[in-house]
C-alpha cells in the first residue's frame, strides 16, 4: 500500500513560489483558497507539512485524504 494522497486547503491564493515550501505537492488555487495536494508518506510527514503551513503564517482551512489521484 502506498502513501495516501492528502489535500491541505489554506486561505488565500498562493503563487507558485510556494511550491518550494511543499516539496512533492502541487498547488491549485480557486475562490480565494489554495489546495496543496500530493502523496503523504506517514503522519510525521503530514505534521511536517502542517508545520510548514503554520510557519508561513497561512491559515489552515481543512486537511483531508482524497480517494482520487492528484
Amino acid at each position, binding site marked *: 500500500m502506498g502513501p495516501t494522497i492528502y489535500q491541505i486547503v489554506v486561505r*488565500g491564493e*498562493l*503563487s507558485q*513560489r*510556494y511550491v*518550494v515550501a511543499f516539496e512533492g505537492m502541487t498547488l491549485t488555487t480557486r475562490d480565494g483558497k489554495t489546495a496543496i495536494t500530493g502523496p503523504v508518506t506517514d503522519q510525521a510527514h503530514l505534521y511536517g507539512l502542517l508545520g510548514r503551513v*503554520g510557519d*508561513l503564517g*497561512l491559515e489552515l482551512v481543512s486537511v483531508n485524504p482524497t480517494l482520487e489521484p492528484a
Partner: protein
Amino acid sequence: MNRHLTRLHPSTESAANPANPSGKDKLGHRPPDTIGSPDPWLVSTKLVPPAPRAGLIARAGPQSLLQAGLDAKLCLLDAPAGSGKTTLLAQWCATAGTGRVAWISLDESDNDPTRLWIVMAEALRSVEPGVGTAALRALQRTSADHERVVLRSLLNDLNGIGSPLVLVLDDYHLITNPTCHQTLTFFLDHLPARVHLLLSTRVGPPLPLARMRAKGELAELRAADFQFTEEEAAALLNGAMGLQLTTEDVERLAERTEGWAAGLYLAGLSLRGREDPSAFIAAFHGDNRHVADYLAADVLARQPEEIRTFLLRTSILRRLSGPLCDEVLETEGSAKLLERLERSNLFLLPLDDRREWYRYHHLFGDLLRLELGSHEAALIPTLHRRAAAWHRRGGDIKETIYHATAAGEFTDAAALIASHWLAYWRRGRRATVSRWIDGLPEEAIAANPPVAFVAAWIGSFDGASKPERERLLAVMEDATWQGVLPDGVSSLAFGAALTRAAIVFDDVGAVLQAARRALQLAGPERSPFHWMAQAALGQALYLSGRLAEARPPLEELIARVSAAKQPYALITGLAVLSLTAGEEDDGQTATSLASRAVAIAEVQGLTAEPLCGIVHMALGWALARQGNLTQAQERLEWALELFRIDGMAVHRAHALVLLAAVHHGHGDLPGARTLLSRAHDLVEQLADPGVLAALLEQRSRMLASATRRRAKTQAPLTERELAVLRLLPTRLSTRQISQELHVSVNTIRSQIQAIYRKLEATTRTEAVTQARQLGLLPEPTHRGL
C-alpha cells in the same frame, strides 16, 4: 570573525572539569556555554531584548492586556507569525524600566534540555546575580538530572529574590523536545510567587494550561487581541510610515489584511512612493491572493537588483553579519548594506547593540527563502557551503555542521560530528548530537563508520531498537577503516564491541563475549570508554552468575576511576559489586557500595539515565535486605521505570524479580505473583537470560510455598464453592456453569467472588493456578485446560 567576549558578570568560579582544566577536547575546541567563559553569542545576542524599532506604533489595547497579564504566573502570547508579539514584548521591555526582566530569544538549538537550562540560568543570573550558579555547575556534567538537581537548585535560588522578576521566552514554538516541555512544566509548577513567565509562541505549547487557567494562574493574548483596529492601522500607515492615505483606503487595507500586523506593514512598504495609492489598494483589495505572498513579492520586486540579490541569497543564514555575508555572496561592503537595510526597516532585526549581528524576521526570512528556492535553487547548496566554510574558520562547530548538512556536504558534516561529538556528550549535550545525526541521510552514516559509532552509541541511550543498532554495527564491523577514531576511541572494532556490551538487550552470553573482546581491543593507550567496557564485563559476569570472576575487574575499576572523569563506568561498577556482595549475604558491603553509587550519581546528575537504573536497583535490593521495604520498593520501581527502553529487557526482568521479593516481604503475595508472571513473560523471550532464569525459578518456588502455607490458615472452600471451582478450568461461561449446577447466575457469581477472595485471586486463571498449587484441583492432563 570579530566577536567580543562580553561578560555580564565576572565569573568567580573555575567550573571547568578538574581533570581537564581547559575544558577543551583533543582538537582544542571547547563546547560553548561553559561556565568559565560564557558563550559570547549567548550573552550578547540571545539574552538581549530586541530594541523597539522606530516606525512601529504603540498599541494601547494589547499593551494593557499584557500589563494585566503580568500579574499571572504565566502570560502566554499565542498568535500566528507576524502578529506583532515580539514587537509588543520589546516595547514593553523598553518601557518597563524596572530592570527586572530576563529575556531569552529562543532558537532551534535550544531544543536540548541541557542547553535550554543553561540559557535559562544565564538569563536569570543576568538580572539576579546570585541565581543559577549552582545550577550552571550541575549542567556541566555528562548528563544532568534536570528536574531533581538543576531545577530544584534554580527554584531554590529564585525563592530568595527580593523583588519581582519577569522571564520572557520569545518564540517558544521552536522548542519541540519533550524533555524541554517536561522540565518547563516542573519549573512552572514550582515557580515562586515573585517570578512571572512571559511566553510568546505560534503554537499552543504542551504545558498544563487548562490546569493553570482553572487556578487563575494563566493570562492569554491570542490572535484576536493582536488585530489592528482601524485607528491603529491609520496610526501605523499614516503616522509612523508617513503615508497619506484616505480613511477609506485605510479601512480597505485593514479589512483586506484582517488587521494582521505583518500584512499592514508590508502594505505600507508596498505603498511607499506610489503615485496612486488608492488604485493599488483597490486592486489589492479585490485580489484573492494571500496577503504576504502578494505584498512580499511586490516589495521585493521594487528593490534595486543589488538589494534583492542580497536579501535572497543571505536568507539561508540563521544569523547575519557583514563579514559572513561578504563570504556567502563573494562580495564586499555587506556590513554597510546591513545597516542601511535595518534602517529602512526591511524586516532585519539587530541582535546586539553593536550592530554586528542581525537576523531576518521569521516570516520575511521564510518568504525570502521561498523566493530563492523558486528562482535560484541551484545556488542554495553553494551558499550554504560558503557559510559552512566561514563558520568553520571561526570555530563555530554547530553552525558549521548546520550549513554543511544543509549544503548536502554530508561527508564534511559527518567528519565534523565524528571529531567533536565527544566533547558535547561529556557536557550533557546528547540531544544536540542526536539532532546532528538525524540531519544525516543513511547513506552518509553508512559511508562514515566513525559516525556510525556515534549514531549507535547515542542511539543506545535514546532507546534505539535492535534492528537499528544491528544496521549501524554492521557498518562499523565491515569497514576497512583502520586505527584510532577522530574522537580518540581506539578503533571501530572496540567501538562496536563496546556498543554490544553496554546495552544488554536479550542475550547475556553475547554481551559477555562482546565485553571481553572490547577489553582486548581497548589497547595500551587507555581509550575513551575503556572503563565502560570493564564495567560492562563485570556486569555481564554477574548476570552470568559468575560472581567470583566478576569481582576483580570491578574492584580494579572502582579503585582506579574517578567520579568526575568516568561517572557512568564508576557507578555501574559500584552497583554490580553491590549486587554481588548481596548475593554473598554481605549486606553491609552491599549497602555501602550502593549508597556510594547513588551519591555519585546524584552529584553527577545521572539519576534519571537508563544506565543508572542498575544503581537504583542495587540500592533497592540492599535496602530490602536491611528490611527497609518501603524505600526498597521506591528504588526498585524507579529502576523499573528507567529500564523501559528497548534494550534493557534483562534488567527489567531482574528488577521485577527483586520487586516481587519486596512485595512478598510485605505480605502482598498476589502482587508478587503478578510481578513474577511479568518477569516470566520477559525471560521467555530472551535469547540468553543468564542467571535470571534460575533467580526467577528460585523466587517462584519461594512464593509458591509461602502461598501454600498461607492457604492452610485461610477459611476452607465450601462444598458448593468446590463444585464451582471444578468447573472454572473449563471454557464454560458463568451462565453455563449456573445451568450445569442448576443454580441461579447470581448465586454462581457470589460463589465465584468468595472463591477469588479465599484464594487471593483476581482472575479466573489466577484462581485456577492457585487452586492447582494448593492441590484443590488436579494438574492439567491435556491441553487447553
